C-alpha cells in the first residue's frame, strides 16, 4: 500500500470559548484527493474546527500542517494563501453584481480590471468540473443552487486545492444535490481534497470516501465509508444505539381544523408569492409542505399567523375544536388571533430573526408568548416563565448552564431550536406550524423533534410541517402539499406517493407555465 499524503493535518487542536471547550485535542487528517465527511451532532465542534482551518478562529493549542508543512492561519487570507477555501452555509454575495464580478471581488490581481479575462477563466473552471453557470448573470436572478455554484467557483478561482463545504445540501433539491455531488467527484479526480459537513447520512454514504466523527468537541474516530452504514454512523456520533425509524401512526379522530381558500399574497413589488392556494389542515394529521426553497412556504405560514397582507379573495377559516364554531382569521393581526382564542403555535424558519430574541435568556424567550399573563398587572410575572423554561430544558434535554442569565445566542443551534419548539408546544396549541424545524440539526435532535410532532398529532393537534428532506416528509407526514412557484401543484397521500413524484411536482408548475408562455409568444 502506498503511503497516503496528507493535504491537511490538524494536530492536538484545542479551542476554548470562555469556560466551554469547543474542541479538545483533535487530530484530524485529510488525505490528498479524498472526500472526507465530517460528522457530529450539533454543538460537537465541527464548524469551530473548520473555522480554525479557514482562518476565522485561532486555536488555543495545537498545530496545523498543510501538505505536511506547519502553518499559522490567522486570517481568511492566510487560509487562501495556503490553498484552503471554505464555502459557508450562508452565502456572501453582492446581489446586484454578476457572477464574474462577485468572483473577482476582493482579489488583488495585477494589472487593470479585466472582466473578459476573468469570465474566460471562469468558463474554463466551469467546463473542467461540470458547473453550469453564466458568468454575466446577476446574483439576484439566481437560484440558491446557482449562488452556491458561484461561491464554489470563487474559491476555485483563487486557486484553492482544499475545499470545505459547510452543509452545502441543506438548501438544495434532490436533483441539485446530485449535480453538486457530480461536481465534487470531478474536483476529486482533479486532485482536490474536500471536506463536507452534512447531517444527511445517506449523502455521507453516497459521496464521501471516509468519515470522521466528532462528539462533544472530541475526535471519536474515522471509518472508511464503504465499511459504514447509517446505523453505525449514528451510533458513533451519538455514542449509543439510536433507533432511526419515524413512526407515522394514524390518529383515530381526524377533524377539519383550518381551511385555507384562494389564499393569494403579493410582495411589495406586486409579484404574487402565493397564488390561489386552497387546502385544509386536519387535527390528528401532519400536513407536509414540500417545495423548492422560496416557493411560498414562508408566506403561507406567515399568512395564517397574521403576519402577511392578504389579497381580498383570500379566506382563512379556523374551526374551534370544542364548539365547532368557524372563525375567520384573515385580516386579524397576531394579537387579535391570540385574543380571539385561537391556539396557534408557529415555529418560524428564521429563528433569531422572528421566533426568538438572541440577546435574551431562555426564560425571557419563553416569556415572549406568555408575558401578557395577568391582565391589569403592569409588572411581569417572571417566575412562571422560569419554571416553564426549566421544564422545557428538562423535557427536551437542552444543554445550557442556566435558564435566566445566558443569552440564547450563545447556545448551539440544536439547543436553540429545542427551546423554540418546546415553547410553541407548551402553548398546548390546536394548530402547530413548523418551518424547517430540523434545519441544521443533527440526527438525534431531529428525531426528538419528529417524535414531538407525532405526539402532538396524536393528541389531536393539526400539524403543518414545512420540510426540505423528502425522505422525512414521506415518513413523517400523512398528507403532503407540494408548492411550486407559489401555487399548489398537488396534495398527495404521503403513504402512497414516491420521492420522485414529489420531486417532479416541485418543479412541474414552473415548466408548465414556461411552456404556456412560450406557446403564447408563438401565437
Amino acid at each position, binding site marked *: 500500500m502506498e503511503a497516503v499524503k496528507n493535504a491537511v493535518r490538524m494536530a492536538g487542536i484545542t479551542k476554548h*470559548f*470562555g*469556560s*466551554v471547550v469547543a474542541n479538545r485535542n483533535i487530530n484530524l487528517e485529510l488525505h490528498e484527493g479524498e472526500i472526507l465527511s465530517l460528522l457530529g451532532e450539533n454543538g460537537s465542534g465541527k464548524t469551530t474546527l473548520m473555522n480554525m482551518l479557514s482562518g476565522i478562529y*485561532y486555536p*488555543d493549542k495545537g*498545530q496545523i500542517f*498543510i501538505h505536511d*508543512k*506547519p*502553518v*499559522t492561519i*490567522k486570517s481568511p487570507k492566510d487560509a487562501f*494563501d*495556503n490553498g484552503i477555501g471554505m464555502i459557508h452555509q450562508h452565502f456572501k454575495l453582492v446581489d446586484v453584481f454578476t457572477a464574474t464580478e462577485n468572483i473577482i471581488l476582493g482579489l488583488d490581481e495585477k494589472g487593470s480590471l479585466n472582466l473578459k479575462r476573468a469570465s474566460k477563466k471562469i468558463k474554463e473552471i466551469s467546463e473542467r468540473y461540470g458547473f453550469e453557470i453564466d458568468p454575466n448573470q446577476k446574483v439576484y436572478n439566481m437560484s440558491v443552487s446557482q449562488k452556491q455554484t458561484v461561491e464554489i467557483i470563487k474559491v476555485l478561482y483563487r486557486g484553492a486545492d482544499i475545499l470545505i463545504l459547510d452543509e452545502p445540501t441543506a438548501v438544495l433539491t434532490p436533483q441539485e444535490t446530485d449535480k453538486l455531488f457530480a461536481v465534487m467527484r470531478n474536483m476529486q479526480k482533479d486532485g482536490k481534497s474536500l471536506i463536507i459537513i452534512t447531517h444527511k447520512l445517506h449523502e455521507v454514504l453516497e459521496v464521501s470516501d471516509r468519515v470522521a466523527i466528532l462528539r462533544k468537541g472530541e475526535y471519536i474516530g474515522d471509518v472508511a465509508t464503504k465499511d459504514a452504514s447509517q446505523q453505525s454512523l449514528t451510533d458513533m456520533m451519538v455514542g449509543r444505539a439510536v433507533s432511526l425509524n419515524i413512526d407515522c401512526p394514524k390518529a383515530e379522530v381526524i377533524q377539519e381544523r383550518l381551511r385555507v381558500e384562494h389564499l393569494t399574497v403579493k410582495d411589495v413589488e406586486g409579484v404574487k408569492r402565493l397564488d390561489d392556494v386552497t387546502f385544509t389542515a386536519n387535527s390528528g394529521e401532519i400536513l407536509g409542505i414540500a417545495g423548492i426553497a422560496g416557493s411560498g412556504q414562508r408566506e403561507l405560514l406567515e399568512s395564517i*399567523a397574521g*403576519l402577511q397582507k392578504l389579497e381580498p379573495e383570500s379566506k382563512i377559516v379556523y374551526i374551534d375544536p370544542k364548539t365547532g364554531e368557524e372563525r375567520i382569521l384573515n385580516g386579524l*393581526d*397576531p*394579537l387579535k*388571533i*391570540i385574543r380571539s382564542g385561537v391556539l396557534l403555535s*408557529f415555529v*418560524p424558519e*428564521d429563528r*433569531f*430573526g*422572528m*421566533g*426568538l*430574541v*438572541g*440577546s*435574551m435568556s431562555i426564560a*425571557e424567550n419563553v*416569556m*415572549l*408568548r406568555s*408575558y*401578557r399573563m395577568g391582565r391589569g398587572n*403592569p*409588572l*411581569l410575572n*417572571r417566575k412562571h416563565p422560569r419554571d416553564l423554561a426549566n421544564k422545557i430544558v428538562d423535557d427536551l434535554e437542552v444543554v445550557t448552564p442556566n435558564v435566566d442569565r*445566558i443569552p440564547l445566542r*450563545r447556545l448551539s443551534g440544536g439547543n436553540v431550536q429545542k427551546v423554540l419548539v418546546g415553547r410553541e408546544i407548551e402553548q398546548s396549541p390546536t394548530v402547530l406550524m413548523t418551518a424547517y424545524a430540523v434545519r441544521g440539526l443533527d440526527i438525534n435532535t431531529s428525531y426528538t423533534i419528529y417524535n414531538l410532532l407525532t405526539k402532538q398529532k396524536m393528541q389531536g393537534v393539526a400539524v403543518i410541517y414545512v420540510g426540505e428532506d423528502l425522505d422525512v416528509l414521506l415518513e413523517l407526514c400523512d398528507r403532503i402539499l407540494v408548492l411550486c412557484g407559489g401555487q399548489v401543484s398537488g396534495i398527495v397521500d404521503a403513504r402512497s406517493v414516491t420521492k420522485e413524484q414529489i420531486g417532479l411536482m416541485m418543479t412541474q408548475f414552473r415548466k408548465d407555465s414556461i411552456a404556456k408562455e412560450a406557446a403564447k409568444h408563438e401565437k
Partner: protein
Amino acid sequence: MKNKTSFFFPFEVHIAKRDGIPAWKRWMIRSMAILIALLLCALITILITKLNPLTVLKSMFNGTFGSSRKIWKTCFYVMILLGISLAVTPAFKMRFWNIGAEGQVLIGAFAAAACMFYAGRMSFFNDPGISMAVKNLILFPCMLIASLAAGALWGFLPAFFKSRWNTNETLFTLMMNYVALQIVRFMISYRDFPKLYQWSSNGTSVGTINKGFPSEGIGTFPKLMNKAGSQYLFPIVCIALLTLFLYVYLKYSKHGYEISVVGESQRTASYAGIKVDSVIIRTMVLSGLLCGLVGFLIVGAEGTVSHDVVDGRGYTAVMVSWMSQFNPFGMVFSSLLLVFMQFGAKEVAMPDGVSLDKNFANMLMSIILFFIIGCEFFITYELQISRHTKREE
C-alpha cells in the same frame, strides 16, 4: 508558501470575544481604567503646568463641593442631567435614535415658564391677600401639565411620522430641537418674557419671570427655612423617585419587556403579537413626558427660562445613557462624574483658584472619559497572548 513577515515576534496577540465576565472583574477593569486615566492626567498636569496635580484636583473638588450652596447646585445639576438621561433611555433601548431630548426639555421648560408668565399678569396671582401657598397650589399643577403635554407632543411627532411614513427619527428629532429653540427665542424677545428690564430694579441683570410684579416668585419651588439652594430639594427628590421608577419600568414591567423585544427585532415583536407601531409611539411619548417633567423642574427651581436653559444636556444625556448601558443606577454615577468635571473645570479657570485655562480641565475630562469608555473594549473582548508557532522553512 510565501512568508511575508521577515522579523520574528515571540508572542502573538489575538482578540477574542469574551463569553461573559464576572461582575468583580468587570469592576476591576473599570477601576483600573480610571486609575490609569488619573495617573495620566497627573503626568500631563505636571509636564505642562508644572503644578501639583493634587492642587488642581483639590480646586476641582472645591468647585463642586466647596460650600453648601455649591453642594446643592451640584446635586441639582447631577439630577437634571440624570433626569434627561433617564428620559431618553426607553427610546434608546428600543433602538429609536432619539436625539430630541434637548428640544423636548426646552419646550417643557418653556410651557412651565409661559404658565408662570401669564399667571403673573392675572389679578388673582397679584392679590397680596392670597397666600403664596394657595397660589402655588393652583399654579404648580398647571405648569406641570403644560410641561408634560409639551414634552409629550415633541416626543409623539417623530414617533408618529416614523411609524406611519418611516421617516428618519434622528433627523426628525434634531429638527424638532431647532423648532423648540426658535419658538423660545421668539417668545422671549417678542413677548419680552422673562421680563428682563422694565420691572427689574437692576436694569441690566437677567431677570426672573414676573420680577417687579406683586406676583413675583409664584411658581418657583419654596426654600426650606430660607436656606440658599434648598429650592433644589424638590427636583432632587423627584428625579430620585424617577430613577427607581425607570429601573422597575425597564426591568420588571410588561412595557419594558416589549421595548426590549422591539429593540432587538421588530419581526420577532410582530410575531409575538406586539404592535410595534404603538410601542414606538407609546415609548416616545413617555420619553417626551419625562423630558417635559425635567423642563418643569428646571423652571420651578430657577424661576426663569432662556433659550440655553438646557445647555446641550439633551445630547450629553445620550452619552450618559449609553455609558451606563441603560442602567438607571449607573447613570447616577455617570452624571455625577460629568457634572464634577464641568464644575471642576469652571473652578480651575477661576482667577482666585489655580487660574488654569478652562480648556485644560476639559482636556483632563476628555482623557478620563476616553479611558472609561475605552475600557469597555476589554470587558467585551479579551486579548489572548499565545506563543508564536515556529516557522520551519
